[in-house]
């Protein structure tokens, strides 16, 4: 049913060499509207490289990345004009970093962090911006009374919630996440994952989520790519891949997880 609409994003033969060192090789996949794609694999397997390549943050050495723009249909994200690409990145896309310091403006309040994207696209009514910030704090289950506090005063889990709110305020269609729960305690992680799952479902968001944690992948993603040494070794529906892995490396990866 999902496959009837064109893919939101398609990567074809994406290859990235870092001065001769392969980061990822010949990676191809699609992300459909509303779909959550997980990318798993051991450290150094190329997950972050792929994520950065498909989110216009790192131009691949070869291969293409196409995104279905709202007005002009599919467009190569590295061939479109820079203003168009930058606008896309701060409106239609979101990016949630593992380290909140990279994704938040630490010197300004939570409200300003959430309002920034709105102001970047022309919002000029303080009261409205504040209302939106208030609504989003509420949606990510944060205390709206802390709107004027600096991110530094928040816990790690709250900082991640703030990062999510700050991205979602412009109603993006796809969010890229690199180990969004990586720095958190297990219990905090679980609550954040619940929140993320709820938001993704409610908003019909597409997401690409990089994680080395198979439990995270199972909880959030519909489909999974397994990476090893820069290559995708297996892909498929999450449950299929995790319950019945075909590739020897996937089998090893799944079996090495200690089941509770």
């Amino acid at each position, binding site marked *: 049913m999902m496959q009837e609409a064109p893919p939101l994003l398609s990567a074809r033969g994406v290859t990235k060499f870092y001065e001769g060192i392969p980061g990822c090789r010949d990676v191809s996949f699609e992300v459909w509207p509303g779909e959550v794609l997980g990318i798993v694999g051991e450290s150094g397997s190329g997950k972050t490289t792929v994520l950065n390549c498909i989110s216009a943050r790192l131009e691949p050495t070869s291969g293409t990345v196409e995104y279905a723009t709202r007005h002009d249909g599919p467009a190569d994200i590295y061939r479109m004009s*820079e*203003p168009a690409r*930058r606008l896309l990145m701060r409106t239609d896309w979101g990016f949630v970093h593992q380290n909140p310091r990279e994704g938040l*403006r630490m010197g*300004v*309040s939570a*409200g*300003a962090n959430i*309002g*920034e994207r709105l*102001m*970047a*696209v*022309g*919002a*000029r*009514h*303080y*009261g409205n*911006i*504040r209302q939106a910030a208030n609504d989003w704090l509420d949606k990510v289950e944060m205390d709206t009374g802390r*709107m*004027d506090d600096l991110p530094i005063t928040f816990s790690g889990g709250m900082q991640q919630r703030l990062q999510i709110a700050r991205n979602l305020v412009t109603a993006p269609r796809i969010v890229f996440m690199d180990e969004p729960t990586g720095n958190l305690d297990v219990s905090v992680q679980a609550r954040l994952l619940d929140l993320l799952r709820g938001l993704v479902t409610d908003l019909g968001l597409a997401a690409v989520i990089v994680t080395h944690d198979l439990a995270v992948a199972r909880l959030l993603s519909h489909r999974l790519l397994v990476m090893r040494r820069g290559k995708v070794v297996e892909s498929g529906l999450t449950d299929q891949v995790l319950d019945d892995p075909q590739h020897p490396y996937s089998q090893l990866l799944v079996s090495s997880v200690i089941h509770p």
Partner: protein
Amino acid sequence: MAEDGYNFAYLDEQTKRMIRRAILKAVAIPGYQVPFGSREMPLPFGWGTGGIQVTASIIGPDDTLKVIDQGADDTVNAVSIRKFFARTAGVATTEQTEAATIVQTRHRIPETPLGAGQILVYQVPIPEPLRWLEPREAETRKMHALEEYGVMHVRLYEDIARFGHIATSYDYPVRVNGRYLMRPSPIPKFDNPKMDRSPALQLFGAGREKRIYAIPPHTQVRSLDFDDHPFEVQKWADVCAVCGSGESFLDEIVTDDRGGRMFVCSDTDYCARRREAGHTGPATRDAETGGA
């Protein structure tokens, strides 16, 4: 006459031509920061070497120069710069705003409106308005090129969230000609409206950061704000204690060690001229009645 041993106005002609080219480019692209090869000047950077180089490049023997610092003609900084040009260019100097063809300033725009043919030269410490949020020069240049200025409002938002109003009161950011975002140098926002559509040419020189920018005559200059928090200038409950002006920018002056204080015009020329014209303020009136 200029003193021997110096080229006219200190800088050599080749340097002046280079700076004039930068100025011409700056005038052609209002608000755009043009890089230039800033020279060593016989004054430390904090003394306005950017403004001095601009003035040196545009001044001619027939010009009359006024130099102000925080509105005053008689501070050490203003006096030194005025002497510098009197010595190296032999030009006439003045304290009267309307008698000057060039006004070099640090931190104020004169109260007396500037007219066509006059040039206001600002000394600029930090030219880049986006620097507070983006330390990378390549990135700020890109933001200017793509007019990505929305984040500038984040700062104003933060002001309102914290203080209930836009508390930024100096170096208040403006859009020039509907295009470039510009720092007006640390003038009070009280002076911002004077930049808008001024018949005078306004030139800005940043020595340490090697940038020149300009507002050509009659150019629109808009101060950033929010629809529901419009731009406002400083207001005082008092008038100037000396000349009674209720329209000028006032400095608070402590008059004794028992907490006595009064407000006086920061623009010394404006205030003195009003006194000459017979205006009085609370302090001068008291003195006169007390003496009678």
